[in-house]
């Protein structure tokens, strides 16, 4: 089993695809069995995928758009918000398939169809995959996860990220084989010959500020403890969004270090959290989020720092590395999803994230996308969609 990554910042989509694939093939020394590809929205993604599919000749392709750049073991590839990265896996003993479905009216059904398609392409219909790697349009990831679990049960790790664009303008895309979608769920079914390890971390710390959701509708949080959610949040954060409360506007950048957390479970008394990132204000004093909340859920104000957002990638990588060592195995490659919000928060220091990740993975190939929502599997086995998270899958051999 072999992993290889490649990247390109070439402006021409076909050239970028060609460059990337050439390097990939060269580094693999063989034709890949699956390709993961992430590009910025600035590419003619149809051209990229078309060319890539042409070059790969029927190999499953999974991917989508990433916010303002991509990263690999060679660092962040972003030339003024323009970049492309791909990861190839050559694994003759494994099986891989990619399935896609337009989300449409029933996200759950779409998710199931996508999974079935992926299993079918892998030649393993009915079989439980090692894990599923997701790329979906933002908006109903929770439903997608629920749909998948209805089909496979809750024990298959579901990881991945939501496609993103550079300016949160809805220009995100999802790639499945040679096709490109705008509102689809793309699933890669992975049956690798290597073991996989995964982690889903936030890098945030809970505060004492807590309240219960008393009114919510989908991804709009209207009230906490009976009070307008925006006011409550502003109070908890010491007026972080005072200005927007008065004037309106996007609060994405101001809330990144203060997401709302929901306790998913505890390990030896230590809770772990699923995060929701407020990105705007609703006319009724509510907060719009990148994830769904339910009435009755307890919200905890989380807090983080730029440093923690930078260091967490390395810490997650280190934890995986430690586990690999304990099992007398080596990391052979990784797939990384890093929250675009965090990336935007750390700004130019994102290179540190990429570098630190590269170091802890021992220079092994990895590919990372900056997404508008992250899916992962917590330590207790819970598959969740969250925001401001980092989701890492590591292949150990």
């Amino acid at each position, binding site marked *: 089993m072999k992993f290889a990554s490649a990247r390109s910042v070439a402006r021409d989509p076909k050239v970028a695809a060609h460059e990337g694939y050439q390097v990939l093939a060269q580094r693999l020394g063989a034709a890949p069995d699956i390709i993961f590809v992430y590009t910025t929205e600035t590419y003619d993604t149809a051209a990229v995928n078309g060319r890539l599919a042409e070059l790969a000749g029927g190999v499953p392709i999974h991917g989508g758009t990433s916010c303002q750049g991509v990263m690999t073991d060679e660092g962040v590839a972003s030339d003024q918000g323009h970049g492309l990265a791909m990861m190839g896996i050559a694994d003759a003993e494994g099986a891989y398939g990619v399935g896609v479905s337009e989300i449409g009216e029933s996200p759950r059904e779409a998710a199931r169809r996508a999974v079935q398609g992926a299993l079918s392409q892998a030649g393993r219909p009915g079989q439980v995959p090692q894990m599923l790697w997701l790329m979906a349009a933002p908006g109903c990831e929770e439903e997608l996860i629920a749909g998948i679990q209805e089909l496979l049960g809750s024990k298959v790790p579901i990881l991945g990220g939501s496609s993103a664009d550079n300016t949160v303008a809805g220009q995100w895309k999802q790639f499945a084989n040679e096709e490109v979608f705008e509102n689809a769920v793309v699933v890669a079914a992975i049956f690798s010959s290597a073991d996989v390890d995964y982690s889903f971390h936030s*890098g945030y710390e809970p505060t004492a500020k807590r309240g219960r959701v008393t009114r919510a509708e989908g991804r709009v949080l209207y009230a906490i403890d009976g009070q307008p959610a925006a006011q409550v949040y502003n109070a908890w954060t010491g007026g972080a969004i005072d200005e927007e409360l008065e004037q309106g506007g996007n609060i994405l950048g101001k809330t990144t270090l203060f997401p709302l957390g929901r306790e998913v479970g505890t390990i030896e008394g230590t809770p772990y959290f699923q995060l929701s990132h407020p990105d705007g204000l609703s006319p009724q004093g509510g907060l719009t989020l990148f994830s769904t909340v339910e009435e009755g859920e307890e919200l905890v104000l989380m807090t983080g*720092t730029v440093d923690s957002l930078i260091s967490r990638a390395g810490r997650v990588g*280190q934890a995986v590395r430690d586990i690999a060592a304990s099992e007398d195995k080596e990391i052979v490659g990784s797939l990384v999803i890093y929250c675009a919000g965090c990336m935007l928060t750390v700004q130019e220091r994102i290179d540190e994230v990429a570098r630190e990740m590269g170091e802890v993975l021992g220079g092994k190939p990895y590919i990372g996308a900056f997404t508008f929502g992250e899916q992962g599997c917590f330590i207790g086995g819970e598959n969740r969609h969250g925001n401001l998270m980092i989701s890492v899958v590591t292949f150990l051999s």
Partner: protein
Amino acid sequence: MTESETLRETLLDLERARRKERELRLETEGLLRGLEILGSITDTEAMFAGLFEILQELLGFEQAFVFTGTRVEAMHLVATTCSGQKALLWRGQEVTRQALGGEPVAVFNTAMIAEWRDLQAPRSLSATSALHIGLRREPEPSLMVCTHSEPGFFSAKHVQLARRFSMLATQALLNRDLRELKLQAFERSTRDQFFNASDDAMCILDAQRRLVQTNPSMDVGLGYEAGELAGRSFESLVVEEDRAWVRAQVSELLSGHAPVGFDARFTTERGDERRLQWKMSFDREARIIYGSGRDITEQREAEDALRVLNEELRTTRDEALQASKAKSTFLATMSHELRTPLNAIMGYSEIVLEEMVAEGDTTYADDLGRIISAGKHLVSIISNVLELSKIEAERMQVHPEPFELGPLVEEVVASVGPLFKKNDNRFELRLAQDIGELVSDAAKVRQILYNLLSNAARFTRRGQVTLRVDRAVEAGSEQIIVCVQDTGVGMTPEQLEGVFEAFSQADSSWTRTVDGTGLGLAITRHLCEMLGGEIEVASESEVGSTFRVRLPREVNVVASAEDFEQALVRSASARKMSVAPEREDVEGAQGCVLVIDDDPDLHALMRRTLETAGVAMESAYNGAEGLHLAHKLAPRAIVLDVSMPVIDGWDVLRLLRSYEEFREIPVLVVTMVDNRQKALALGADDFLLKPFDRKALLEWLRRAPQDDAGGVASSSR
């Protein structure tokens, strides 16, 4: 980054690592235990039971199955946790091949899997999700299937664990196979040694009855080179006539469970035939037949020869028996035919002589005396010939009973006394004082003594005859020694050689001058031997002879119930005789004597005899008439023949003894059938053989009781 943040995240990472490590440890321990079971337990059922228990802890399945078979497409259930589930056919396809290839397969919905769609699983088996683990691909594919009713129960973690187990299990089973192979190799080596050392033909056949291996004895025995028979059909070696039989036997072996045994003829390379006796058993697991064949050609030929010989011997024996029977029949007939006229000749001669003497006419007295003497001699010959015949036919039995020897000796001496006087011999008896009791056949002892004494009396003239009877201990037991010494003519060494043979009197000239049948000593020797003793003789011509008889004090014969009964009868008769009141004469006797006999001559003779003695007589000519007259006349005594029409004498005797009114009437059996013992056993009071001794008849009548309350009289000859 705050301190608490770092701490919390670190704790989570540590806990995650700890969980991983714990899971790994538990899995490893479980796997090791599983492998130990796989490697160490030889019993398949126990092995899988142990394995199921451990894997159930690790994988959490609800049911588990193990399928195996020669083909992936048709694997049979060999073990399961599902009680009562015995027969399931697993038609392996893609998932099975994948699992057997070392990659366990978890299925979240079995309905989507071809194997499960083909599986005729019972409704009770709720297997929505399943985990398929290849245990081995070769030599026979073996698959473990774990199931759970919850959809998607099995995950990548299970697969990962199962993969480790599968790898290790394959290795463990391989090691197990290697051990078994080594063991088999050892067993094969041992078997080969026996194989090669055996003198019997040995071979191994496959299920198609082809020879896989033959031992040197089989190769050589059938005339082939080593290894030349391999691959040939076993039946092709069998001669054509026996081939169907052999085929049937081997078919029975293959279809049944028990070993078979058969023999058949085989054609050797040289073309001759050998008969081999085979025993064959079938190893159902290995699908091979073990055969061991013993060459019984010579044995069978010898048996055939023996069978022919036996047949000939049987024929000869049958012929001999037939001849013996004919001889007995002849002798019996001769006895009867001779005795009947002799009875008349002697009886009437005696009557005529007595009447002539009574009238003072002695003109023909000597002639009549000679007629009577010759008749007696003839009777004696007939009796002895019959007796010897019975002895030689081993029909004569020994009837041991305790008796005092002294009185018996004196009785015999008394009876032989006239013979001593006749030849003017002196006689001396030396009877040991404490001679005591003897347990033997009194009649035979009596006959031995009589024969020896009468022999000495006849071959000695004006000489001395001495009888010594002593006790002695010989060969560790008490013996009676009887010596009869005479000063008679003696014998030459040549004459001594055949002295105990029949019809071999020392000097044939004596037969003209001396009474004797020439059978006495032969009979005496036989009687001695029958009583467990012996007889020997020392003699010198013109000086005399000494016969020495040794008889055990207690004869060792296992008596039959019948013998015992007869002995009791004789004993009782003897006791009654001793207390029976004697009568002075028969003239004064009350009532008549009823004679029951079919021979009119006998009636005439009997009437002359009895009426001369003053005894009234009534005649009955068959058994029925006899019984009628017995009832009508209530005779004082009955003289009864045996061979009669209508009802024979034995049945008459039985009836007489079974009715109260006849029970006390004395019965004397007078017949030509020499079976005194039977007569006594049936209740006769005495027995006389025809031609009967008239004096003995009158003597018996004299002694027989004549009152109603009198006991049954008896006497002995």
